[in-house]
Structure formats: structure tokens, C-alpha cells
């Protein structure tokens, strides 16, 4: 079981991810924007964070950069979950510090597998 922060401004997506990951036995903390994700990572000390890119206020890319600059978050795996599917977007995601990149629309089963794979790699 892992503690996972999911940040997405779309409540449906958030609920979908929360449902799927809780089903898999994880402890999930849902938040609605990038700033709240950074805050949740500081207080909850998660094992993994899932970030949407386009969110109000702080974007997922900015949140990823902020997490990578924080030495207390060293090694925290980040998965981007976003509708931005261009090659340049994916490149930007990895440059910002993402460990994996999932494009919406997504398969919940695939998401769960990627989460398990990233956790297995980084734990």
C-alpha cells in the first residue's frame, strides 16, 4: 500500500483515480490544483504524486518543478496525467521532472499498472 496525492481540477477524473487506486489498496489524497498538491506533498509525505498539467493557479508542470527543487521531496515519483498529447508537451513534462506521462482519455487499469510500475522502480 502506498500514499498517493492526486491533483486534478476535474472532479470526475479525480474521483475516478481515487476510486481505482483505493480499490488497489492505496491511501489517496485528492486535491484540486498545483499549489494544493505541493502543500499536500509537504504535509502528507506521499510515496507518489499524480499531476494534471492544466489546472487553475499553479499548473502541474510548475508543481512538478517546485517538488523537484525541494530537497525534502528527493526521489518522490511524479506521474503526469494530462490531455496535452503533443510530443513537445510530453518533453516538457519529463523536463519538469516527471517519471511517467499518461495522456487523457486514459484507461484506469493502465493507470493502476503504471502506478505500480513506478512505485516498484522507485521504492
Amino acid at each position, binding site marked *: 500500500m502506498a500514499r498517493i496525492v492526486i491533483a486534478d481540477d476535474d472532479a470526475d477524473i479525480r*474521483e475516478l483515480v481515487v476510486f*481505482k487506486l483505493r480499490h488497489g489498496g492505496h491511501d489517496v489524497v485528492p486535491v484540486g490544483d498545483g499549489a494544493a498538491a505541493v502543500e499536500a506533498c509537504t504535509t502528507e509525505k506521499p510515496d507518489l504524486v499524480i499531476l494534471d498539467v492544466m489546472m487553475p493557479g499553479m499548473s502541474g508542470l510548475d508543481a512538478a518543478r517546485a517538488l523537484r527543487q525541494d530537497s525534502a521531496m528527493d526521489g518522490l515519483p511524479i506521474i503526469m496525467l494530462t490531455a496535452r498529447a503533443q510530443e513537445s508537451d510530453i518533453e516538457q513534462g519529463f523536463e519538469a521532472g516527471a517519471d511517467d506521462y499518461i495522456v487523457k482519455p*486514459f*484507461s484506469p487499469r493502465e493507470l493502476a499498472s503504471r502506478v505500480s510500475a513506478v512505485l516498484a522502480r522507485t521504492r
Partner: protein
Amino acid sequence: MGDDAFLRVSWFLLVGFAVLSVLCFITLVLTRATKDRLEKRRAVRAATIRGHVFDLVMGEDAEVASAQSWLGATRGSRWNHVEQQLFAMLPKLKGDGRAVIIGVLLARGAEQHAVGLSRSRSAVRRCRGTYRLGMLGLGAHFELIVRLLADRKFLVRRVAVRALGNLGDPRAVRPLLVLGQHDNRLARDLVFALGRMGGGVAPELRRVLAEEIDSGEHLHLDPAAAVLGLLGDTDSVEILAAGLRSENPSFAGACAEALGRIGSPEAIPALVEALLDFRPNVRAAAAHALGAVGSSAALSNLIDVVDEEEPQVSRQAAQALLDLGPAARELLERSESAYAVEALALDKIRVGRR
């Protein structure tokens, strides 16, 4: 009127006002309480439906079966809510979960319902029906959706454009471009829809572009060029290079931009030629594209236009050189052009911020 009568009337008025105030207060409290209760009931119903929908999409086998049986037994207004939630979930999912939802919807007659809605006299219902037909992705209704591109209401036309994108049938290319010719408000929707069709649409886009370039470009072709660029379709380099010579400056610029996105070195000779085009937007787009292609083959051509008469072209050329690595940067540093100095200064600020 005596004092007694005046006092009596005042007393009645006062009591009447007090009674009215109490009645108003009670009505307000009751209205609020009823509204709260209804909202709570609605929220509980939505949460119940959502739980079953999630079980259906992501549950274990037993949960899926239970959700299917619960959803199958819903009737009337409850089914309408279920249907709405299922359709709202479709654009967010792919894979098994999406297929299961579509299966449930089709089994409950969502296809016939959507067709009926798309033929309604109400524009809102037509939008809903068209959206649902697109989401169900049934090719059998291709012609119906194409006819809705000519709907008198803009919103219905817009939903029809996106629905065709979901169907992914390349036959939609020409009707979509014809619509774009008449309604430039739909330009972004066209690019979205054509892009959503994926790589399978590229041959048809190339065919339509070739036909139109041969016959004098009667259509608004910018979205077609943009989508070929977004798809990174290397087979379209030749036709896009031909588009650079179009009389329409907007289309020629779109072709340059698309060639930059594709990033094929085969496009360099045509882009270098476009740097000498008489239209500034085409020269600027060509300079930007040469930077995006990322080859050093055009360095001398780009440095020549860093100091040209049009600031937008010079700025793009300077930026392109910055993108092309250390050798290009060195050329830029040696240039005396104000635009070279500006590009280097802006780059220094950007680097400092990181």
C-alpha cells in the same frame, strides 16, 4: 374619525403586519428546508449512480455484474440521470471501461434516443443528440452528423464538428473544410476534430490539399496544414512545401508552421526559399520552422534575415538561431543587428529565471 377609531385601525394594521411577517418567515424557512432536502436527495442519488458507474468501469467481475444489473433495472428519470453520467464519463476514458459503458448505453436504446434528439426542433436537444452520436462512435450515423454541419444554429454545427472527430471517418475531411470556409469561428474546432481522427486521416488530408492546390484553392486549407503538422506526417512534406508558394499568405504561413512541426530535413530547401517570400508572415513562419527543424544547413540563410526590414521576421530568425545550438549562437553574437542583441539579452533573462 375619533381617537378610538384611529387607535383600532392602527392596532389592526400592526397585528396584520406582524402576522404577515411571521407567515413570510415561515414560508422562507420551509422553502429553504425543502430546497436543502431536495439537494441532499439529489446528491445522494448522484453519489449512488456514480458508485455503480465506477463499479461498472473499474470494479472486479462481481461488482461489474452487480452494477450492470442495478443500471439495467433503473427506469424513468433515474435512468436519465444514469445516462447523463455515463455520457459525461465517456470522453475521459479509453479501453475496457469505455467499451463497457458504450455496451450498457446501446443495450438501453441510447442510439435511437440520440438519433431522435438530433432531429429535435430544440437546438439544445439537437446538440445533446449530436454529442451522444459522436460519443457512441457509430459510423452508421456519419451522414446524419454531416447534415448537422449545415444546422442553422452555430452550437449544433460546432458539436457536429467535434462528433465527426470522434467518429474518425476520413470522409469527413472535405465537409469539415467546406464548413471552415464559411465559418472561421470553427477553425480551432476543425483542427481539434481532424487531429482527433489520428494518423488515419493524413492520406485524405494530403489528397484534398493536392486537389485544392491544383485547382486554385477554393477551400480554407489552414486547418488541414495545421493538422498534418500536429500529426508529424512526414509523407506530407512535399505537398506542404508546394503550399508555401500559395497565393494565400495565411495558408502559406500555416504550411511553413506545419513543416517546422514535422521537423523533416527534406523541408529545408523549400523553407530557405520561403525566407525570400515577399510576404512577411511567410518569411517569419519559415524562419521559425527552420529553427524547429533543428538542422544547421540553413544557418547562413537565417543570419541574412536577422537584419531585414520586418521586425517580426528578424526576431523569428534570431530566435531560430538561438534554438540551433552553439555554432548558430556564435553567429548571432557576431552579428551587429539590434534583433540579435535583443534575442541574446532575452535568452539571458530566461536562463537566469530557471
